[in-house]
């Protein structure tokens, strides 16, 4: 009976030593793991904004990392999901440096057409990021965080000024409508802004457009001028503003006057 008991004792001791040594070395190898997040790159094309985040994982530890999963989710203030993205790497081998891009895609047309708010108002978007990895291919670890990301409105503080009148000829007048806004967004606003003028009954009085090219984080002041019949000049009514700019197509925005 003594021999089997001794055998069990030796086996148990060896198993303990193996388990503790494995756990301790797996933890120890974590100190040689480097994780760097680079400067995000932004680009806009075909109505979509792409955010590329360069990520570098330098695994100088003794064990492979497996099931590396980076997932991000961007939500607006109401909790609606604007973008979700996930990057998965099956294995990061020991001694290997792995660089990859984590891509986030925002459909600007969807975002801006569904939410006029984001065109004209700055906001905070809620970003939830989580990184999961299996250390030594056996110990799953997950780190998650959330933070707010400022959204800059492309037409922040957009306003039409008081129209001024210039005599064009005996029957027509030239109406000049000043407009201005601040482009707080991370992209340039290029295209046309069209303004239509209606009287109080909804009859179209005249229309005009202006071309804008406003770099990110800059102001714009300009005007739209158009010729209308002098006798049709209403004392009150409303303007309809249409934005046909890259990457945003939006309208009409109704601005009363008078």
């Amino acid at each position: 009976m003594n021999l089997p008991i001794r055998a069990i004792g030796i086996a148990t001791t060896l198993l303990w030593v193996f388990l503790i040594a494995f756990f301790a070395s797996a933890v120890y190898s974590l100190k040689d793991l480097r994780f760097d997040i680079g400067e995000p790159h932004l680009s806009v094309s075909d109505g979509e904004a792409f955010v590329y985040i360069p990520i570098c994982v330098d695994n100088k530890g003794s064990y492979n990392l497996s099931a590396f999963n980076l997932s991000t989710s961007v939500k607006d203030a109401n909790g609606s999901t604007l973008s979700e993205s996930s990057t998965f790497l099956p294995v990061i081998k020991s001694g290997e440096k792995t660089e990859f891009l984590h891509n986030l895609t925002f459909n600007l047309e969807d975002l801006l057409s569904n939410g006029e708010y984001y065109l004209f108002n700055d906001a905070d978007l809620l970003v939830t990021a989580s990184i999961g990895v299996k250390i030594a291919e056996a110990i799953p670890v997950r780190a998650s965080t959330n933070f707010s990301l400022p959204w800059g409105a492309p037409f922040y503080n957009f306003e039409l000024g008081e129209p001024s009148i210039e005599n064009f000829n005996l029957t027509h007048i030239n109406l000049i409508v000043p407009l201005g806004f601040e482009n707080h967004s991370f992209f340039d606003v290029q295209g046309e802004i069209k303004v239509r003028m209606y009287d109080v009954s909804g009859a179209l009085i005249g229309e005009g457009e202006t071309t804008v090219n406003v770099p990110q984080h800059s102001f714009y002041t300009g005007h739209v001028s158009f010729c209308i019949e002098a006798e049709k000049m209403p004392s009150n009514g409303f303007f309809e503003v249409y934005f046909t700019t890259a990457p945003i197509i939006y309208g009409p925005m109704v601005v009363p006057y008078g």
Partner: protein
Amino acid sequence: MAKEMGGSRNIVFAKKIALRALKAFLKGFLLYIAYFVFWMFIAPIAEFVPSFQQVVENFFIIYVSLVIIGELVSDTVLQHFFNAAKALFVIGYLIISLNGGILNFAYSNVVLTVDLRFFLMAAVLIGLIGLAKCVIQAIEYMNNKAEIGFKA
């Protein structure tokens, strides 16, 4: 004559106790060295988990105490009680201190979740083997005692 026999019995008993104490001291010392080496490897965790060092220290203090007491009462039935207690303590302490295998830590707004269920399962299984060994040892001890009783 009886006095002489009693004196030599005392000397034998004292030698036995001294040997046990020496063995207990050596075991405790080796365990302390093992703890020291183990701690060198897992020290990075303590930077992230403030209570980690306390948890490991408590574990080693109680474990080493049980080892020393078990060694001092060796060759008695109490040794098997302490061995079983040691095995149960390892299982219980790991389950409680590892929170069932899922550990959550929060640093400012980062939440870190470590899933040690695999490690815990392996440790509990090894602990159960150790407990089974203690039970078998206790049965064997009682069996030997009974055999000696019958022979006498």
